[in-house]
């Protein structure tokens, strides 16, 4: 009360209250989640303003080498230099993996309306301010032979000339594009938050047809056996012909965000209240094989099918391995944070020196950013990053 007695004290108390109320609303959320991909047979993780390469064998950061094959060292600290990029601009946000633009140059889409150029061999930002874009990006850029297709999260699809990043054409939707377009022959299939699935000429940017699906679409379409498969916020899964006719539909309990996965003529999908679905694709429509309430919260990422298991990861901090025949949970593992990013299944190949198939799970927490599990889920994580 003594503080309140003076006018200055009262002013200070009021300002403190204002600041406290500002704090009550919590720290700002990341606008989107990260991505996991492969680059030069190493794992590339992108999230927030960080991009880092990890060794798939043990999750250790990848070192940088000079042309003579020697590990590069930091002149200041004399420690080995890692392949790690931190956006120097505070607004830089990498939510999608970069793609190879030119021999040693990567282009990374940043949420803050730009494409950032990276020198791969030196893990260095070539141009800090980046190439400006007329909107934010949360979906992957689709690189094609001559053009780059850049979906903007508020409105349009841009086609940029690959050589100089000049605009070739711009296709307008009423709302944003939150999923990667699908290129089939010369047609782009573009899903939009304005409820439409668009077919667009990939060369000219002219609309071929559009189909209103009655709800926002945040997932990318999948092509299987001459038809498109898609889920949306109208709580539906659709089978659509390449000329824009709905061939079949199935009602889900809640919104579908993840792109459906199709294996052996069976479609697997999940919704945002934790259900996982297995639907047989039959000529006339979908036949429900099973539906399981698996997780306590939303399942955002696409489900992954590995041998006799279906794998789903949720916002409830768990990764679930389900029986592919029945949908029953066989095992689950706690990753201590929400999972929103798509999972990545790595199988041993000639270049990828891993002893067993690995399932990579990226979370929304930087201190538990990446987990590598044996793909069958039968053991604790093989490694995690950071350790």
């Amino acid at each position: 009360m003594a503080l309140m007695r003076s006018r200055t004290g009262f002013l200070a108390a009021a300002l403190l209250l204002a600041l406290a109320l500002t704090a009550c609303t919590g720290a700002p959320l990341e606008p989107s989640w990260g991505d996991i991909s492969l680059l030069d047979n190493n794992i590339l993780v992108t999230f927030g303003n960080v991009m880092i390469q990890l060794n798939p064998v043990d999750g250790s950061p990848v070192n940088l080498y000079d042309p003579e094959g020697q590990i590069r060292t930091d002149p200041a600290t004399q420690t080995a230099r890692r392949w790690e990029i931190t956006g120097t601009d505070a607004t830089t946000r990498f939510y999608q993996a970069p793609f190879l633009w030119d021999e040693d140059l990567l282009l990374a889409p940043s949420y803050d309306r730009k494409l950032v150029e990276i020198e791969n061999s030196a893990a260095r930002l070539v141009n800090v301010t980046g190439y400006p874009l007329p909107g934010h990006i949360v979906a992957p850029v689709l690189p094609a032979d001559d053009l780059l297709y850049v979906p903007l999260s508020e409105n349009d699809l841009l086609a940029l000339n690959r050589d100089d990043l000049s605009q070739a054409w711009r296709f307008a939707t009423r709302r944003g594009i939150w999923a990667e377009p699908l290129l089939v022959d010369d047609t782009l299939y573009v899903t939009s938050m304005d409820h439409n699935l668009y077919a667009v000429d990939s060369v000219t940017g002219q609309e071929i047809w559009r189909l209103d699906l009655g709800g926002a679409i945040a997932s990318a379409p999948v092509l299987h056996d001459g038809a498109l498969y898609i889920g949306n916020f109208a709580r539906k899964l659709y089978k659509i012909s390449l000329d824009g006719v709905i061939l079949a539909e199935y009602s889900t309990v809640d919104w579908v965000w993840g792109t459906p996965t199709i294996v052996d003529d069976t479609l697997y999908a999940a919704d945002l209240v934790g259900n996982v679905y297995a639907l047989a694709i039959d000529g006339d429509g979908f036949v429900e094989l099973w539906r399981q309430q698996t997780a306590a919260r939303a399942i955002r990422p696409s489900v992954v099918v590995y041998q006799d298991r279906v794998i789903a990861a949720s916002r409830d901090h768990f990764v679930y391995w389900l029986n592919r025949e029945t949908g029953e949970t066989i095992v689950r593992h706690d990753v201590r944070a929400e999972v929103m990013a798509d999972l990545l299944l790595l199988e041993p190949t000639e270049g990828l020196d891993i002893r067993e198939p690995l399932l990579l799970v990226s979370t929304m927490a930087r201190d538990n950013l990446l987990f590598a599990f044996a793909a069958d889920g039968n053991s604790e994580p093989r490694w995690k990053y950071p350790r």
Partner: protein
Amino acid sequence: MDFILNPFVTLLTFLYRVFGNDMVLSIAVFTVLVRLLTLPLTLQQQRSTRAMQQIQPEMRRLQEKYKNDREKLAAEQMTLYREYGINPLGGCLPLLIQFPIFIALYQAINMALAATPTQMIDTAGRLLVPGLDSVIPLNNRWLGMDLTQPPNLNTVGTSIESFFPIILLGLVGITTWLQFKMTMPKPAAPSPDGKPDQAQAMTQSMGTIMPIMYVFFSLSFSVGLSIYFIVSNVVGIAQYAVLNRNKLPATPAEIVDKAAEKPADKALPAKGSAGSGASAAVKNVRPNTAAGKPSGNKPNGKPTAKASKAK
């Protein structure tokens, strides 16, 4: 917070659909509904403010009398509050209750408008009325501003539209100040010893701080919340004007009557004794009440219910 947030998000989305996909209109209607819902609290706040103002002369006298005995002063003040049926927190409580609403609304606006994937995924499962999914995502643009983002002042001067954030902030400040000016009591006469009145000084400070604080909030939070502030202030001003015209029941006039109708020996100790001042209070209070209008008795001459009960 979900038990507040989910109905808020649902109601905002429902209003959006009803009002032809106009988010600003739905925020405005939502605000009016919130103000109507909190009307009893507003009334209580206004009554409390007036009552506090009316007993200020007596309070000042007590402060002067017990300036060296803080404990006794506190006890006497509490006695005074009790005598006149005043809750000293009555003015603050309604304001405090509005803060959770304001925080929930901020989050509800962000969730309903959901400009980013992480906001959108939080919206899922919050719509309690079937069929509202069909309007998702809601249009978050208004006059070139993003309703989910704080006003952008970086582009001011580049176009006519770029001045809208400034106008918006100006309206928040002006309407907050206006509402405060209208609803807060008029300054009481200075004390005989010329010392500044503590409550009055605080009220004056509030008149300066509140608009600044709300402009600060508007700069930090979303444009949608600024619209809530403006509409809420305008509704508050209108509410005050209407209520003032019709006179609030249980105004300080009743307090005066209550004191006047008490037997002198029972009402308060005689002047000069501990806790004195009822008669003095009456003398001091009456000239200030309701612009000198006859008070306390209804037109039929009967005492008000509250005053009768107090006996």
